[in-house]
């Protein structure tokens, strides 16, 4: 899957959680600054797993040592890319 497709899907998932239009979320946007709370984050991760058929290693109790970097749209896209590649490999 192309990076642009993944990015569009990530933005779409975040937009649904935040009740924003996808056009309001920049590819380099900071997720916390967008206003996503902890429950919203859990829902977004669920949506990513369903959309890409991946298992995202994320524990809400370890924000300082994330196995999956959820800080920005760009970091989420990189993480999803890696998980898709790992699944294929």
């Amino acid at each position, binding site marked *: 899957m192309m990076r642009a497709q993944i990015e569009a899907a990530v933005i779409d998932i975040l937009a649904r959680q935040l009740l924003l239009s996808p056009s309001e979320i920049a590819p380099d946007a900071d997720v916390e600054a967008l206003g996503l709370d902890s429950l919203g984050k859990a829902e977004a991760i669920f949506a990513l797993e369903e959309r890409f058929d991946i298992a995202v290693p994320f524990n809400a109790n370890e*924000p300082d040592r994330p196995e999956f970097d959820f800080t920005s749209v760009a970091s989420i896209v990189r993480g999803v890319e890696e998980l898709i590649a790992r699944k294929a490999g």
Partner: protein
Amino acid sequence: MRRVVVTGIGTVNALAQDAPGTFAAFAEGRCGIGPLGFRDADRLTIRIGAEVRDWRAEDRFAAKDLPLLDRATQYALVAGAEAVAMAGLPDGIGARGGVILGTAAGGIQTWEDSYRAVFAEARNRVSPLVIPRLMHNAPASHLSIRHGLMGPVLAVSSACASANHAMALAFQQIRTGAADVMLTGGAEAMLCFGGVKAWEGLRVLAPDACRPFSLGRKGMVIGDGAGVLVFEAEDHARARGARVLAEVAGVGMTADAGDIVAPGVEGAVRAMRLALEDAGLSPADVGYVNAHGTGTLANDRAESAAILSVFGQAPPPVSSTKSMHGHAIGATGALEAMACLMALTRGLLPPTLGFQAADPECPLDIVPDTARPARVEAVLSNAFAFGGLNAVLAFRRV
């Protein structure tokens, strides 16, 4: 108002299937958490829990009764029989006795089994006993039937505070004269595939261990079990020469009216202060706090801030016994009440297991790893639930 005392306790949990065994485990600092053994556990991401091991229901109950009893009810009945026997309750309490038990998920295993039958296995009918087996009030009702208690009987559901809310209401029934004796506490059996799968989604479960208040903690670990306490009017207990374990001194109940999952500090502070005020205690009288202490980042920080706010910069020792019996959700407050009773009656504070390093955000004396002797006059037991619901109990030595 009448004073209320505890005259009996009983429990089934991951540490032991009775109260003496549970006290021994608290004293030894034994951990009941281990690999999950139920059907389809291999499909879970989180594979640890505090299960009740070697549970042989067929040895505990008549074959004709078992089809009516979800595991939560089975645990409640065994715990209740132990508590009633310890209290030496006479027959004939009838309408002057009741039962108020907490549960968060009720008969979730029964829901799961019947849904599996109709959805996954395409069966067209389920047992006619599914409804009476899964209802949240089944544990309370079976205790009422078994012990002939015909006064106020009901179930209370407030997630992780269910048992504390149940005990608070039971206390008030006796205090205000509506009953002389109440069986109270909680029962939970959420360790089944669907139960853990649902929790996994919140990303708050630890994959390795429960380490409340410690750096390196990764979240909560779910436990199963039941705790039943006999609450009794002091005059009633004294008149029949009953052995009194402790006084139920006061309760505090508040709601955050904030977030549906994130804990608030202010609601927890108010609940602890209300419990102290209700009990006629000052913070300096309290020698031990059994924390809600789930081992999540959010709870332990918020609870630490709340305890410091109530007790000042030198709070009493605080421990979370969830590190041993797991987070038994709607029953957990009842198991933790037993830890409080051990502190009061044996002069021994149960420890917090799993400590690795101090978290600067949780500057508390958490009694790490080993139980500690201490003469304690009064204790608090905290429960701060999802939904922003808080219930704190105060117990006092007699």
